[in-house]
């Protein structure tokens, strides 16, 4: 447990210091959301209607952005080999890295969402529910992305391949995230069912992600 918290602290420190990409995702998110009104026009009613979808899509793309750094930098400087040889099970190591990654890249996205929601004319009383869906859904994105990051690190090809592999797998998260957010804002469908499925997807990816990612690292780097 001590080793895992040390690893998490190390990853978070690296992410916020020079060369780390912690806030880059949030900046990207901001820019994507600002681009949308330029593309579809500044009609506030239309923006309010598609606002939750834009916020979810932006968060999904932004969470992909820093994903290829998750293992690549550790692989380059050799610390990934040390982590793999350590006594702590690789699954837990990988999970700890994913949690640190979520805290440094996805949590900032959730934090700036109210501001962006305001710009997209999302109703104030539904903002809490919208943030709740992102809070519940983004861990699934990180833990699914974890698999892609582990698969591509051994091939030394991150970037585009990673997005191609990960995005189709995140479709259910997007569907239930957006439908829960829409239910909270417009109704009439209840908020509960899609939101609980979203939580279930996060919990399932929390189980499947580290196991698959650890297997990918073991088979890929052997």
């Amino acid at each position, binding site marked *: 447990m001590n080793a895992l918290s040390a690893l998490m602290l190390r990853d978070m420190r690296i992410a916020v210091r020079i060369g780390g990409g912690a806030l880059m995702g949030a900046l990207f998110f901001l820019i994507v959301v600002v681009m949308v009104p330029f593309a579809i026009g500044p009609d506030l009613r239309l923006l309010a209607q598609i606002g939750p979808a834009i916020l979810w899509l932006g968060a999904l793309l932004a969470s992909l952005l820093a994903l290829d750094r998750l293992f690549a930098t550790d692989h380059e400087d050799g610390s990934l080999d040390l982590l793999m040889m350590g006594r702590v099970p690789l699954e837990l190591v990988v999970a700890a890295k994913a949690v640190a990654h979520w805290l440094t890249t996805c949590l900032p996205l959730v934090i700036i969402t109210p501001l962006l929601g305001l710009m997209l004319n999302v109703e104030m009383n539904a903002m809490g529910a919208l943030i709740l869906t992102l809070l519940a859904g983004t861990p699934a994105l990180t833990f699914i992305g974890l*698999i892609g990051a582990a*698969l*591509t690190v*051994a*091939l030394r*090809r991150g970037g585009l*391949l990673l997005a*191609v*592999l990960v*995005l*189709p*797998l995140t*479709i*259910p998260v997007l*569907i*239930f995230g957006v*439908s829960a957010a829409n239910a909270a804002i417009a109704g009439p469908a209840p908020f509960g069912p899609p939101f609980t*499925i979203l939580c279930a*997807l996060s919990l399932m990816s929390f189980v*499947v992600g580290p196991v*698959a990612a650890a*297997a*990918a690292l073991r*088979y*890929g780097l052997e």
Partner: protein
Amino acid sequence: MAVIDLANPTRFLRLVDRVLPWLIAVTAVLFVVGLYRAVNAPDDYQQGATVKIMFLHVPAAWLGMMGWGLMSVAALGTLVWRHPLADVAGKAAAPIGAAFTLICLVTGSLWGRPTWGTYWVWDARLTSMLVLLLLYLGVMALYWTAEDPGRGSRAAAILALVGAVNLPIIKFSVDWWNTLHQPASIMRTGGSAIDASILWPLLIMALAFTLLFFTLHLAAMRNEILRRRVRTMQLMQAQEAHA
């Protein structure tokens, strides 16, 4: 002959050489019979002759999904049993499965134009088949980018298994999301909803498509083994020239 005996590529190639001509012949005969029966099948009272697209569309959809199943079994073979032919089988299945999925999407879209009035709708079935195609393309991209075939096939095997877990979830999520496509009409409780005059040609076509899949798959596996041999020989030649 046990599965383990096929680990020897030479023995496998000999088996393929013996089986493949027969498989091709049976597939061709089944296609002739199936297409003949399909052409002579009665038109639908509502859709007219366009219903005949079904004889290509439905088997292609089944085999597109079966291709991923085969890839998942091959993935288990690669990761668990380390069977040398399993990664060849997985790699050979990906483009074939993708091709059947594409055939399903294209024929479905051509069928949709006269009956639904549009080539494409964001309906649950169509969307989940499209996602299946995207997943196939992802696996193929993974094979392309790997410099070392062994590494690439292990990575693709993990992706195939993760995809196998995720595919039903994608299917149910898009089902829940939006739907227009008709529900299952062949395998349902209370017997098939399709008349025998159409059902029989469909089943013959499905069998023909399945055999076509395995014919292409065996041929692709043979080609992959030969390609790897050529690669090894080229490497050896380069090494000799260097020394």
